[in-house]
């Protein structure tokens, strides 16, 4: 089987969220090894492991840590638990089932980067996960895994939870920082990057939940072991949320490079009612959709990029042949219109315009020129927006026209016949 459970080996163990159970599985075992190393050695280990950010951008985690402005303190660690990319539900699994794994990973990151304060930014709807985390933090403090002089190491570190209040854009790292500072969650101009001026204008590491959860494995087993899995540039395992028209939707941890076909047909049990696959969105709603004939694409950063899409946050959305793609695209366009923060014009106006045109086409009021206009608007949003949300909004629209123009034409034809 293509499953590779490095993070989720014990995820189904009863009460894993409790410290005593987590310790039975070897939890917090990495700390003894951690404190024997120098902080820079830990950064080198994470670099050597090839671990890349699991939030969407896929930036090398160790490299990100090494970019922190030299000798500027205090520094902060923010864990991005604002999981909001449609299709993605893997961080919620980790947060609710194994909160101590995240704490353990954050301790390692903080130690490596000489950080004394960490925040976990939960999306507002994750009240339950945040409550569980508060309990886990209490347990960890009582055992001196957090607090002053952790396990006699001389290292101090504290973690606080923070809940957002409903805004997809706060998953973008600089918008998250604004939100955490009590402001509107609008993105900041970069540079300066958060590693130089982040939270409270101090050097800040921002990592996704899954990224930080990998770190204890790297400390325990060594970076070579982690790097022995996966492909040349996409190392290790990836937690993939599979949803949509599959028989067994769920979160599957696979070795990087497993094919999409294996994910859909072996792990997720195939398509509902044994229908035909029409399209799949590989990495969350913002990643361009791909047609069924690209189902043998390996699930890793490079292969999905070469196929014209992205691995993104690791959310595979499966669409069968009973769907007119315009309907799905309209839904996503509506989402991005709703979530555009309004700060910059291409995104604010472009997402609304795309939705208007799609809505018209879907209602049978569209023309061929309007489909071309959609392509044109996509070009005018791409790389011209203030932050990646604009590009994200373009992903589903542009790819749906590229691969499924016939679905658009079917609706236009209906219109033409209706008005004839």
């Amino acid at each position: 089987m293509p499953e590779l459970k490095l993070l989720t080996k014990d995820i189904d163990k009863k009460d894993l969220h409790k410290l005593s159970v987590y310790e039975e599985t070897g939890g917090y075992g990495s700390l003894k090894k951690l404190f024997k190393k120098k902080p820079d050695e830990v950064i080198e280990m994470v670099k050597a492991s090839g671990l890349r950010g699991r939030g969407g951008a896929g930036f090398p985690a160790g490299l990100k840590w090494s970019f922190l402005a030299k000798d500027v303190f205090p520094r902060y660690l923010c864990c991005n638990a604002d999981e909001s990319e449609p299709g993605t539900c893997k961080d919620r699994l980790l947060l609710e089932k194994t909160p101590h794994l995240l704490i353990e990973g954050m301790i390692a990151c903080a130690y490596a980067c000489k950080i004394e304060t960490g925040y976990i930014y939960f999306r507002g709807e994750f009240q339950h996960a945040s409550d569980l985390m508060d309990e886990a933090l209490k347990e960890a403090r009582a055992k001196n895994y957090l607090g002053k002089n952790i396990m006699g190491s001389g290292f101090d570190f504290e973690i606080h939870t923070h809940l957002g209040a409903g805004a997809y854009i706060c998953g973008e790292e600089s918008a998250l920082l604004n939100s955490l500072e009590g402001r509107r969650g609008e993105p900041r101009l970069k540079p300066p990057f958060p590693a130089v001026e982040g939270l409270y204008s101090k050097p800040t590491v921002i990592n996704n939940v899954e990224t930080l959860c990998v770190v204890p494995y790297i400390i325990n087993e060594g970076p070579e072991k982690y790097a022995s899995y996966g492909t040349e540039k996409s190392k290790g395992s990836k937690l993939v949320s599979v949803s949509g028209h599959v028989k067994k939707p769920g979160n599957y941890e696979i070795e990087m490079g497993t094919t999409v076909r294996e994910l859909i047909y072996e792990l997720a049990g195939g398509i509902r009612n044994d229908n035909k696959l029409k399209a799949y969105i590989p990495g969350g709603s913002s990643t361009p959709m791909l047609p069924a004939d690209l189902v043998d694409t390996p699930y890793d950063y490079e292969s999905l990029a070469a196929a014209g899409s992205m691995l993104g946050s690791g959310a595979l959305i499966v669409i069968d042949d009973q769907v007119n793609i315009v309907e799905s695209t309209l839904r996503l366009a509506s989402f991005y219109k709703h979530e555009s923060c309004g700060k910059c014009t291409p995104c604010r106006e472009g997402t609304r315009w795309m939705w208007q045109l799609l809505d018209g086409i879907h209602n049978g009021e569209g023309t061929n020129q309007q489909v071309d206009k959609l392509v044109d608007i996509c070009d005018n949003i791409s790389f011209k927006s203030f932050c990646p949300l604009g590009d994200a909004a373009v992903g589903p629209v542009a790819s749906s026209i590229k691969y499924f123009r016939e679905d658009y034409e079917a609706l236009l034809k209906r219109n033409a016949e209706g008005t004839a």
Partner: protein
Amino acid sequence: MFEFSPANQKRIPEILAKYPDTQSALLPLLTMAQRQEGYVAPQAMVEIGKILKLSPGYVQSVASFYTMYHMHPTGKYIILFCINISCQLNGADELLAYTASKLNIKVGETTADKKFTLHREECLAACSNAPMMRINDTYHEDLSKEKIDKILDSLD
């Protein structure tokens, strides 16, 4: 007038202690006010502004950015029905229409007895258990009409 309850008053210093800058407590305090009153009243924003030394206008400008803050009273139970792609592919639109007709309201409305408010919602990160809805803090997943009946009928 708005006042935090004595229990919530006690929590304010704990919340402030998490952050080196008091403004970071803005979202937590807005959330606490909403949990106490069911919505964020203008007076609550004035009060929070006093605590954090921010103008009421500024507090409102931040509060209005976030979709989870209700500026008007809502029903006892707020149903947020996910209609984003994974739920859509699994029949969410039909189930949302079913829920609305069962409650005899339109999406966005509150029942006459002030028990339920029904909203369409974007992705809530439960995609592999679609379709789903969130009622107050609880996620209800793998929904069907029967399951919705059972859940709604069980709420007082």
